[in-house]
């Protein structure tokens, strides 16, 4: 009965994981994903509460609903994990990513790059007569679009942070 009603559609989820900031904790999380064959689309981590030694990991992953439930349960049973929160499932959330985009060129292409950056509210954080480096924040789709538009204008280098996210509303994790 139950096992015949599997939903095999692949879904994407953004999961926030609050962990002890101790050596090896990131390796544990990454090892869990590789060891059990789960996908990582992006993963970010940094300490968010130095006094309590807590770090927050944001991981974007994909899989069938059954696999996604497994991922959360497996994360939750890691000893240094405090909380696992499925931001996608829990309701509206704000996902953000930051990119640094370096574009080199001259003449009309250079002007065009600056114009597009303005439209995207990207900020030049480094510049010379030969290049700009833009800082841009937003959801991943916006960043993808920006990078694609920069490509014919002399795109040289891209560095992206991966997604961080937080739930909308007044409640914490």
């Amino acid at each position, binding site marked *: *009965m*139950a096992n015949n009603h599997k939903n095999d559609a692949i879904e994407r989820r953004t999961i926030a994981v609050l962990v*002890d900031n101790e050596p*090896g904790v990131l390796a544990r999380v990454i090892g869990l994903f590789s060891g059990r064959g789960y996908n990582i689309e992006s993963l970010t981590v940094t300490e968010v509460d130095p006094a309590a030694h807590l770090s927050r990991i944001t991981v974007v992953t994909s899989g069938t609903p059954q696999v996604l439930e497994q991922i959360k349960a497996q994360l*939750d049973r890691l000893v240094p*994990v405090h909380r696992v929160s499925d931001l996608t499932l829990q309701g509206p959330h704000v996902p953000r990513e930051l990119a640094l985009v370096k574009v080199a060129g001259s003449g009309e292409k250079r002007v065009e790059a600056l114009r597009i950056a303005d439209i995207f509210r990207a900020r030049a954080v480094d510049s010379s007569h030969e290049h700009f480096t833009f800082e841009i924040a937003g959801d991943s789709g916006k960043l993808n679009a920006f990078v694609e538009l920069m490509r014919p204008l002399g795109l040289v280098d891209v560095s992206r942070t991966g997604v961080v996210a937080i739930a909308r509303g007044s409640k914490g994790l």
Partner: protein
Amino acid sequence: MTRDASTETELLSGAQMVIKALVEQGVEVVFGYPGGAVLPIYDALFQQNSIRHILVRHEQAAVHAAEGYARSTGKVGVVLVTSGPGATNAVTGLTDALMDSIPVVCLTGQVPTHLIGNDAFQEADTTGITRPCTKHNYLVKSADDLSRIIHEAFYVAQAGRPGPVVVDLPKDTVQNKGHYTPKEAIRHRSYRPRREPEAAGVQEAMALLRGAKRPVFYSGGGVINAGPRASAALRELVRTTGAPITSTLMGLGAYPASDPQFLGMLGMHGTYEANLAMYECDVMLCIGARFDDRVTGRLDQFSPNSKKVHVDIDPSSINKNVLVDVPVVGDCGVVLEAMLAEWKAQKARIDQKALKAWWERIEGWRGRDCLAFRQEGAVIKPQHAIKRLYELTRERDVYITTEVGQHQMWAAQYLKFEEPNRWMTSGGLGTMGYGLPAALGVQIAHPDALVIDVAGEASILMNIQEMSTLAQYGLPVKIFIVNNQWMGMVRQWQELLHGGRYSESYSASLPDFVKLADAFGAVGIVCDKPAELDDKIREMIDTPRPVIFDCRVAQEENCFPMIPSGAAHYEMLLGPDDKAAKPISEEGMVLV
């Protein structure tokens, strides 16, 4: 070593704190092997009398011995090994303990902190290597953290779903002095698994059972791990409801095998009646088992018409392989007691007419007598050997361990366990070489019991060096080798799946096991005649020393019943005549 409360702030060396923490945890025995990085700890061991150290002959065996000790007592097994090869040798044992959820704390030596990462002599990245094969691990970088971490390690090993925990101890942290933190001061920051179930789940489960027409209980190692209370509650609930019960390999003994409601083990080599009851049931109560592939067979044909309740302390076990209708997260003992209370409060009863009809069908399947065999002729059948071993030892205080393969499955089929904690076998990992060191650990915990390692002639050679440990400590373990001169299970699969091409599965150049026993100061007995079997088994039992019993059996006997890989429960092979009729699918061949 002082244990006075007033000296809590006194500085102790790390090695002294290791001993003090172990004593405070109630540890009586440590299984280990010394080496450079752990010399300070061995020095501290030398200067105390609270903890007994058992010197094994290989670090893998230290972990299996600790597992045997843990599984037969319900306590944490403790291991002490050195850095580098000491730690890497322990990896198989740790993985075994992880797969079978056995509480083990393994202390590993490490090179001094200033040498870590320098490829120092006997350095290995122990926390890196053991991360995926432990429940948790620690690298202790300061003597001040040491005792706290050891206490935490014991907590983590036992809390929730038990498992192995490694504490890696650089040599300088055990030589330096630090402050001792007592056990009571520890409260884990993040790891607090849930023991108490949600009442709604328990009620829903009992409502399902109450409405069942064809119920079955399916219990596993989680019931054993939850302690004797869980087994007692399981027995009462099963008897009160009148439903049939089957068990996984890991769960044998939680429910008495001699009870008429017990259908025997289920799964790949389980009984016909257990597997068909699983296939045909309408309500399944899985208690502390994990729907392993050896149990379910082909997943899309696994018990297709049942509502399933799954009780497990580990939420990640739920809906992992099989989607269930009523998940209940909690300790099996607590949940079973709550279920029993709920059942009684409801004054519930299963529809007796339906239950009677269900039992009639089950008795029909049972009537096939799927474990029947004929002992005839001049050669001992392996099933007969194990059956006689059971019948001649059943009245005794007996503990059984096994190696891995055909003999393991025959042992599970023909040895009847009436109590929990009497059966130690490598279920999840399937580790050949497990049985002898595990038996060693069991015998240390139960010096007066009859401890038997049911072995195969191939498996036993994987940790045969532990004969020397048996000799050193005068441990009268009985090694009962079902010797068919083949890696029997490999040979069986090659016969059934690979056209009888017996690639590398013959046990060539076997030692003379009688002489081998003699060389290790044990007693060797060889038996190849059915008529002599009983007397020789009695001789083995009556020998107050370690014994290797070389039981020469029929070479090409296969282990039946068998659900071939990729097949469903109803597609069991009951015997050698069955296999021609049911060829194994290509799909099944790729499975293990």
